[in-house]
């Protein structure tokens, strides 16, 4: 149990509180728990004692000055503790110290040795390590000499310290002081303040560590819960910016959206904001994330507007079967109206659900619902703590946010953008008498992503995204996009027909020219035939002439030969 700081600590077993104080209450020292009536002091003390006796083998003495032992047993039974059994097992002793001022007269000097002796007896009877004094201040109404009482209370605390008792002392909150009787003067080790505030008719319990000697502790107020699961404190604001970082990608359930991100999806542990005006498809997109997460993990859907049954029915219309996941325990649906608890309480309840269910993905739908119930800063701080907690646990978070206008102003009401790793902007734009949904990936930290506005189409087979029509008249969606596309198709057809026509003409001309070529060739051939006929005739003539001359010469020679002879 010993911490680095050197102070030994006794765990209280109160979930969250032991983390907050790095181990619990200071061992062997008194701790003062103060607060106004009904803020849970007695339950805190009882939980500390019972956990000690049951889980840490540290028997305890519960000294009650107000409530009767039977009442205490039945009170803690409502938290699921079986105190009577611990009493039977001699792990816990309840010492009831009742003082009735009516039957008491004070004459002269006295001390409270009787109280010490009874306490000692009770401690020794079970070997107690823990003591609860609830509420020692009632002694002030029984005894009229405060000087004696103060001296005795101081002596009692010292005595308990000497005996090494880890003690919880409860005290009523006073006006402007921590306790009505100034008991904080005597307890220097650890002082806790419990608070129970009602704002806007919504109550919140808060715990603050006023002082804890030897331990670094947060000075913030931490919300705490008292319900059937006992007492739990949520040390959410003690978290820093040292989140784990994941390279792993998760699918959004919309393939087209994943494709818009380089790497194929969002980083695991991201906080993703889906913002948009009413009816832009925020919840549907969130549901596809849930559905994708449920394929091989668990998802927690925290809805502040719809019931589980309603969401299941609605999502069926876009082809998402959430019912199966609900039935096989992969999906848990928690519905609560924002006004049901205060912000702190919501946070506390949500964190407890997350802690118990251990989902891979959490959806808060919608966070804007809180803005009506609380102050902006408070909402922001609550969400910050939620984001931090989820991030620290590697849980992907989806927040939907209802925007009231989309006129170029993309700031969210709660000033959330800086908290978010990714921001999907859903638009619902009117053009030519119809509204069309559009999706834009406004930011995605650490991931290159498309800068295009996509048309967001919900069909009964799921959600898909269409790249927008980027024509001369800007990006178009919906029927104007279809009209533009039809226009383009018509133009295309026209151009095709024109080309075919020109091609036909060409072909015809080609054929005509070829025919002419054939005719001319024929003419040429005819001329050539004529020419060769003429040449042949000339050759015949020349041959005949030669032959004739030869014959002529022959006949002439014969004559000449006779003459010579």
């Amino acid at each position: 149990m010993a911490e680095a700081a050197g102070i030994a600590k006794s765990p209280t077993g109160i979930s969250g509180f032991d983390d907050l104080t790095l181990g619990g209450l200071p061992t062997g020292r008194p701790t003062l728990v103060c607060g106004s009536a009904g803020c849970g002091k007695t339950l805190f003390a009882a939980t500390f004692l019972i956990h000690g006796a049951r889980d840490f083998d540290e028997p305890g003495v519960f000294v009650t000055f107000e409530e009767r032992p039977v009442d205490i047993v039945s009170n803690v039974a409502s938290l699921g503790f079986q105190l009577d059994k611990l009493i039977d097992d001699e792990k816990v002793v309840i010492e009831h110290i009742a003082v009735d001022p009516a039957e008491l007269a004070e004459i002269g000097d006295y001390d409270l040795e009787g109280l010490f002796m009874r306490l000692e007896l009770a401690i020794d009877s079970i070997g107690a390590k823990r003591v609860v004094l609830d509420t020692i201040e009632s002694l002030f109404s029984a005894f009229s000499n405060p000087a004696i009482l103060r001296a005795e209370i101081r002596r009692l605390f010292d005595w308990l310290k000497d005996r090494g008792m880890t003690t919880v002392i409860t005290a009523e909150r006073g006006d402007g002081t921590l306790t009505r009787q100034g008991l904080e003067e005597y307890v220097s080790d650890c002082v806790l303040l419990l608070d129970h505030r009602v704002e806007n008719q919504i109550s919140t319990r808060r715990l603050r560590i006023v002082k804890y000697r030897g331990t670094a502790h947060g000075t913030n107020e931490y919300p705490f819960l008292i319900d059937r699961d006992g007492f739990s404190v949520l040390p959410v604001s003690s978290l820093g910016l040292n989140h784990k970082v994941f390279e792993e990608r998760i699918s959004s359930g919309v393939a087209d959206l994943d494709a818009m991100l380089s790497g194929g999806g969002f980083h695991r542990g991201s906080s993703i904001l889906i913002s948009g005006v009413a009816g832009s498809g925020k919840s549907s997109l969130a549901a596809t994330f849930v559905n994708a997460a449920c394929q091989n993990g668990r998802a927690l859907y925290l809805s502040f507007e719809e019931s589980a049954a309603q969401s299941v029915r609605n999502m069926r219309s876009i082809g998402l079967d959430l019912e199966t996941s609900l039935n096989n325990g992969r999906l848990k649906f928690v519905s609560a109206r924002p006004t049901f608890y205060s912000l702190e309480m919501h946070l506390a309840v949500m964190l407890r659900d997350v802690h118990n269910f251990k989902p891979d993905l959490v959806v808060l739908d919608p966070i804007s619902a809180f803005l009506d119930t609380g102050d902006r800063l408070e909402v922001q701080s609550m969400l910050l703590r939620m984001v931090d907690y989820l991030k620290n646990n590697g849980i992907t978070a989806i927040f939907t946010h209802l925007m009231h206008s989309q006129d170029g102003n993309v700031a969210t009401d709660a000033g959330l953008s800086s908290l978010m790793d990714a921001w999907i902007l859903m638009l619902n734009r009117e053009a030519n008498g119809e509204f069309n949904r559009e999706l834009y990936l406004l930011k995605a930290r650490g991931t290159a992503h498309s800068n295009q506005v996509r048309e967001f189409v919900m069909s009964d087979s799921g959600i898909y995204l269409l790249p927008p029509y980027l024509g001369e008249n800007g990006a178009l969606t919906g029927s104007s996009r279809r009209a533009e596309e039809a226009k383009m198709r018509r133009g295309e057809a026209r151009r095709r027909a024109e080309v075919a026509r020109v091609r036909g003409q060409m072909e015809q001309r080609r054929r005509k020219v070829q025919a002419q070529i054939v005719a001319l060739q024929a003419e040429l051939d005819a001329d050539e035939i004529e020419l060769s006929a003429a040449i042949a005739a000339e050759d015949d003539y020349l041959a005949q002439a030669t032959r004739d001359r030869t014959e002529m010469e022959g006949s002439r020679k014969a004559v000449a030969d006779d003459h010579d002879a």
Partner: protein
Amino acid sequence: MPEHKSTSTRKLTLYVAGETPRSLSAVANLERIVGEHFPGQYEIEVVDLKKNPKLAREHDIIAIPTLVRELPVPLRKIIGDLSNEEKVLVSLRLEAEK
């Protein structure tokens, strides 16, 4: 002064814790007052809780010393060393006269 001599003996129990000066003075004061003002009316028993601490719980004793008078009803407890004789007298007589 002793108007009620006829009343039967009643018991006064004085709880102390060890022989502290305060306890001793309470015993002495009580014995003196009873002896002077209520002779024979009260029987005094001194219980040392150090010897039997369980009695503290049994009789619901917190302050030391405590003087308990169980009868006549109602039960009456006087705490302190009984150093103020007047007050002790008032306390005991008022009850006794009822």
